């Protein structure tokens, strides 16, 4: 299967410099235009300075490109302090000749005739030459509009400055404040014709979301979609809506679910490697257990597996799974299984996504299991968008992803519909509580590219592990043909399930009644026997009494003593 959803970013021979921002280079076909100036604009606190600093730091460390950082707002000490928490040591980079810092004061000048920005250019030149810099950041050059008089003259001087940057062939990032009705407060976009990136931060449903948009990129086709980005302990990272340059390989290779009978139900003998799977079901239906079984099986096969839980701690998971015969301790000890626990409320959606992506990059698992995605909070479409990107990210890396979701039985799994279209395989586990018994059912609602079973089967969790009974219930065993649309199938299955439940309940009631009747008959017989026995005993006792009537005086005395002793105690 070739993923042709987006081929918008085509490189027309423009040389690109890696931006140092994870994900951004995927969107721009390799990075920022090399030897050109990129304008990064946005409101206060949107991450402009961080973007620019990261461009320099990553350029210096990862790409061997020394950089010059000219700050118009902060001193070198402030700049260093700001990024220390990200693990970036600007002073040591400076000492190593990988970075040159210069800060422009904010003293206000008075105009007395013609002037230009030649001194600034001389400073830039000096800084560039001192370390052989190929990258330059001016953050935020707009401050000059506050400290220097004569805006028209400043514009002429800025045009000359931008021209000089281009002549020097440095890859530059210039930051600017967002303006009303225009991209930047002072119209700097007028001078930058190569690349303009807009950063934005907005709060929706109390969840802060940061977005990045490529407004302009000359020589590179791009669309104007907004891409969410996050700022975390590593800096800025962009989360592409779709993985543009990955081809999702459809591999015929499969991964076992860890439950042989479930593998058989899937037709292909397991999940396709690199596919995405959703397991839905009510509380206590065995979703987590299915994940654990898979984690055990994947790691036993010598592959790495990441299990991410939003509900339980690693210890709880290991203990609970041991009780149903799934031993995860060996898997953990081998280092092949990583269990991560986190609360949904800890971070916003985008941060969760970024952190999962970071974990995956670090651990490089063959499978990622997430339990459950239904706890992720946020506006519905944003949750769906986040999950879409999660699925695509994992798929793009060839990782098999199994997600669980708690479904509300009353809501007929409607909440799952958003996600079910994203995944390749959808498995549902259900709970039936009737006649004092609880049974679990499992069925495969959808599995792309497999002639999977449509039967609802019984899922048994015991000390011996997970088992799936051959056929869950009788008359409606084979439910539907695969040709029907998925939603129809789903709706009909719900109805079918209910019919089966009713049938099952009736059957169980009949069995129970029959069983009780048998027990009653047995008890009646036992009572009759017991009564006969009692009568025999009474007759024997009476006979004994008469036989010993002559020695009654001695016997009565000793009995009276025995009774007295009993009463005292």
């Amino acid at each position, binding site marked *: 299967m070739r993923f042709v959803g987006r081929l918008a970013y085509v490189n027309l021979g423009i040389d690109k410099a890696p931006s140092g921002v994870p994900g951004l280079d995927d969107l721009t076909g390799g990075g920022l235009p090399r030897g050109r100036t990129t304008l990064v604009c946005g409101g206060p606190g949107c991450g402009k300075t961080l973007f620019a600093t990261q461009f320099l730091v990553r350029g210096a460390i990862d790409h061997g490109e020394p950089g010059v950082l000219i700050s118009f707002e902060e001193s070198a000490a402030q700049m260093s302090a700001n990024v220390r928490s990200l693990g970036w040591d600007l002073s040591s980079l400076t000492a190593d000749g990988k970075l040159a810092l210069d800060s422009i004061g904010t003293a206000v*000048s008075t*105009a*007395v*005739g013609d002037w230009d920005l*030649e001194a600034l250019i001389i400073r830039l030149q*000096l800084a560039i030459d001192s370390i052989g810099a190929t990258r330059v950041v001016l953050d935020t050059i707009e401050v000059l509009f506050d400290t*220097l*008089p004569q805006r028209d003259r400043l514009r002429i001087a800025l045009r000359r400055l931008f021209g000089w940057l281009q002549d020097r062939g440095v890859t530059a990032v210039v930051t600017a404040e967002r303006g009303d009705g225009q991209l930047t407060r002072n119209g700097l976009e007028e001078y930058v014709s190569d690349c303009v990136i807009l950063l934005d931060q907005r709060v929706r449903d109390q969840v802060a979301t940061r977005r990045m948009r490529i407004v302009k990129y000359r020589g590179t086709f791009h669309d104007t979609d907004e891409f969410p980005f996050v700022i975390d302990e590593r800096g800025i990272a962009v989360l592409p809506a779709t993985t543009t340059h990955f081809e999702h390989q459809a591999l015929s290779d499969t991964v076992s679910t860890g439950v042989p009978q479930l593998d058989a139900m899937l037709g292909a003998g397991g999940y396709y490697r690199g596919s995405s799977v959703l397991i839905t079901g009510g509380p206590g239906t065995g979703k987590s257990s299915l994940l654990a079984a898979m984690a055990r099986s994947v790691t036993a096969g010598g592959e790495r597996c990441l299990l991410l839980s939003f509900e339980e701690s690693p210890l709880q998971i290991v203990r609970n799974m041991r009780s149903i015969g799934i031993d995860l301790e060996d898997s953990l000890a081998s280092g092949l299984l990583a269990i991560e626990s986190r609360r949904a409320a800890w971070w916003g959606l985008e941060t969760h996504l970024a952190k999962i992506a970071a974990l995956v990059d670090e651990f490089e698992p063959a499978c990622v299991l997430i339990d459950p995605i239904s706890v992720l909070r946020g506006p519905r479409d944003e949750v769906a968008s986040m999950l879409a990107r999660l699925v695509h990210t994992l798929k793009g890396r060839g990782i098999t992803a199994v997600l669980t979701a708690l479904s509300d039985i009353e809501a007929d799994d409607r909440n799952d519909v958003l996600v079910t279209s994203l995944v390749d395989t959808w498995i549902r586990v259900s709970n039936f509580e009737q006649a004092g018994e609880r049974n679990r059912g499992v069925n495969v609602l959808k599995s792309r590219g497999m002639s999977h079973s449509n039967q609802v089967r019984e899922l048994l969790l015991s000390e011996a592990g997970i088992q799936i009974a051959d056929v869950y219930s009788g008359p409606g065993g084979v439910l539907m043909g695969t040709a029907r649309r998925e939603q129809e199938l789903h709706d009909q299955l719900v109805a079918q399930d209910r019919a089966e439940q009713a049938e099952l309940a009736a059957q169980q009631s009949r069995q129970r009644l029959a069983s009780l009747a048998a027990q009653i008959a047995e008890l009646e017989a036992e009572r009759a026997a017991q009564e006969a026995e009692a009568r025999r005993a009474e007759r024997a006792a009476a006979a004994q009494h008469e036989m010993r009537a002559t020695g009654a005086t001695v016997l009565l005395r000793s009995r009276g003593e025995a009774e007295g002793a009993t009463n005292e105690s």
Partner: protein
Amino acid sequence: MSPESSDGEHPQGDADHYTLRLYVAGQTPRSLAAINNLVNICREHLDGRYDIEVIDLLEDPERARADDIVAIPTLIRALPAPLQRLIGDLSDTERVLTGLEIVPR
């Protein structure tokens, strides 16, 4: 370029004495105009009460950074305090006098 001084003594203690630094970049017409304009203004309005240091940033680029200069030409009134920054070729005499807070004698 050598500093031009109205006399050889050290008049910094004099509150009326002007210590001026002019930053230029090479022998451009604008730089030369600024030097001429400054010398003329000082001779006319600050008789014997000034020192001028002219710094050519092409020759001494480190001074641009050390003295935090962005525009050319820049005139700094180091004394009397407070420090004043004027930018331009000093062709606007009225504004130069106002900017340097020179009270003509």
